[in-house]
């Protein structure tokens, strides 16, 4: 039976309590209804003659990401928000939260929401970020070889059940220090029902591909904790436009993700934002340390795959970064430039069961997970040039060209044949985004 963490139990009654205690809670003052539709199209131009290979390394063609959001301002100090999204994972609630905002320095929200982490989470909606897809450290489904990589470091939007306290301290009119501290259910992995369902990098699986129970409720007693601190200098109206707005922030998350409360993860990162004249410059660096249970690589009989010694110590590290700049080009165009990348070091799933080496292929039962195609020290880089066309208010056509580079391992035939890795990939990514 699935266990619920303290955060999972606390969130619903806390949300109700917030509603009950709020001044004027019986009278709704205002409503706001908004939404967006984003139609994406991806194509690897270097694999035009290999339609099935495209599908094996990414999700080509069309996919849609649509959302609707309703906000009810119950009083000046209390609001409730519901946001429902339809995308690759089907229909899901990515926001269902009550928010109490009594003072700029102290606010509480409880329910289902995105915990504050890094700079990108606020811009997760396709209408908000400038490129068709997320930066690599925050990727969720747009990257080439995403299955092997387990997608980003914090796939965004990362939505969880829990509560968050946040606020902003303003020592001067131009300097502010924002904080956020959250307690949520935390990332989770599927139950280890079989040693062949190796959970490697993939604590962050949030989709209902697992089971609805695993997706919607917590899987262990450990709540996830985390926080964010951001120092901002914001140019005031009487200052020269040559003075930039600058934010420097740091974030972390920590919890355990398996149903035995044994395997931990620690994610941390720093971010920077600079706005000068009409140019936005953003940069983030993230790192995730993830415990891996070496027993998962054993077989029911207790035999090792033979790679176990190689797999110690059982920690995987994944680091990522992005540097991105966007700027207007007249009234109807925007330009975007981005460099991002990730590096993964540590154990990987076994590529074969040595005990089955003597068996003919059709009799072998071991199915290596996609991550087996990675190297023990692997990296990916991407260079993006984008142009956005804004024909009218509420509509945007995003065009981008992405040059992908993967670590070159010419002697690794498994990676080439089973993983279908090329050293370079070239992607065209389009997105038609509308907001209402």
């Amino acid at each position, binding site marked *: 039976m699935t266990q619920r963490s303290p955060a999972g139990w606390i969130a619903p009654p806390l949300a109700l309590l917030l509603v009950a205690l709020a001044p004027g809670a019986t009278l709704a003052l205002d*409503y706001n209804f*908004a939404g967006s539709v984003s139609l994406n199209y991806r194509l690897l131009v270097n694999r035009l003659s290999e339609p099935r290979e495209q599908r094996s390394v990414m999700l080509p063609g069309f996919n849609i990401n649509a959302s609707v959001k309703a906000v009810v*301002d119950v009083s000046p100090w209390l609001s409730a928000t519901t946001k429902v999204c339809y995308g690759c994972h089907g229909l899901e609630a990515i926001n269902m939260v009550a928010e109490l905002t009594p003072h700029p320095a102290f606010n509480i929200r409880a329910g289902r929401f995105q915990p504050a982490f890094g700079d990108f989470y606020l811009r997760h909606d396709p*209408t908000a970020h400038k490129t068709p897809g997320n930066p690599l450290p925050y990727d969720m489904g747009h990257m080439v070889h995403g299955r092997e990589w387990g997608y980003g470091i914090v796939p965004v939007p990362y939505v969880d059940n829990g509560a968050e306290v946040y606020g902003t301290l303003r020592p001067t009119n131009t300097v502010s220090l924002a904080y956020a501290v959250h307690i949520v259910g935390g990332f989770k992995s599927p139950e280890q029902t079989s040693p062949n369902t190796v959970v490697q990098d993939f604590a962050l699986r949030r989709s209902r591909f697992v089971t609805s129970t695993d997706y919607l409720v917590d899987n262990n007693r450990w709540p996830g904790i985390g926080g964010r601190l951001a120092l901002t200098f914001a140019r005031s*109206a009487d200052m020269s436009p040559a003075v930039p707005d600058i*934010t420097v922030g740091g974030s972390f998350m920590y919890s355990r993700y398996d149903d035995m409360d044994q395997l931990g993860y620690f994610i941390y990162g720093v971010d920077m934002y600079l706005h000068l*004249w009409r140019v936005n410059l953003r940069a983030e660096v993230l790192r995730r340390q993830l415990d891996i249970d070496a027993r998962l690589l054993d077989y029911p009989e207790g035999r090792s795959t033979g790679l176990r010694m190689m797999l110690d110590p059982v920690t995987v590290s994944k680091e990522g970064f992005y540097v991105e700049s966007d700027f207007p080009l007249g009234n109807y165009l*925007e330009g975007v*430039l981005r460099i991002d990348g990730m590096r993964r070091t540590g154990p990987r799933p076994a590529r074969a069961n040595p005990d089955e080496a003597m068996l003919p292929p059709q009799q072998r039962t071991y199915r290596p997970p996609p991550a087996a195609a990675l190297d023990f020290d692997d990296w990916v880089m991407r260079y993006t040039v984008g142009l956005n066309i804004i024909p009218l208010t509420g509509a945007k056509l995003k065009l981008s060209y992405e040059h992908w580079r993967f670590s070159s391992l010419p002697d690794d035939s498994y990676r080439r044949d089973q993983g279908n890795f090329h050293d370079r990939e070239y992607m065209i990514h389009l997105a038609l985004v509308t907001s209402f």
Partner: protein
Amino acid sequence: MVLIAILLLQVACIFGPPNVIDVSGYPPEMQRRYALFAHKCSRCHSLDRPIQARIGIGGWDDYVRRMSRHPGAGISLADQREIAIFLEYHAKKELEQKR
């Protein structure tokens, strides 16, 4: 890549920001507030969102206040008021045009 970046940045410095709405007929102080709104709010989202939001007259103060509380939003209390005044003014203008 570097050359392309430099070229695009040069072009960016020549032209103005996208005018989501035409404020040329607005009083100078409202045009100034529009510039502030564009500067501050474009950090996290496109300007379409607040422009199209169905916030009732009198509701913008609370809305801007709440948005500004996102960690790292970087909008001072004084700027919140200025932005809310502009959005309130614009919402009234839109309402008048529809009538």
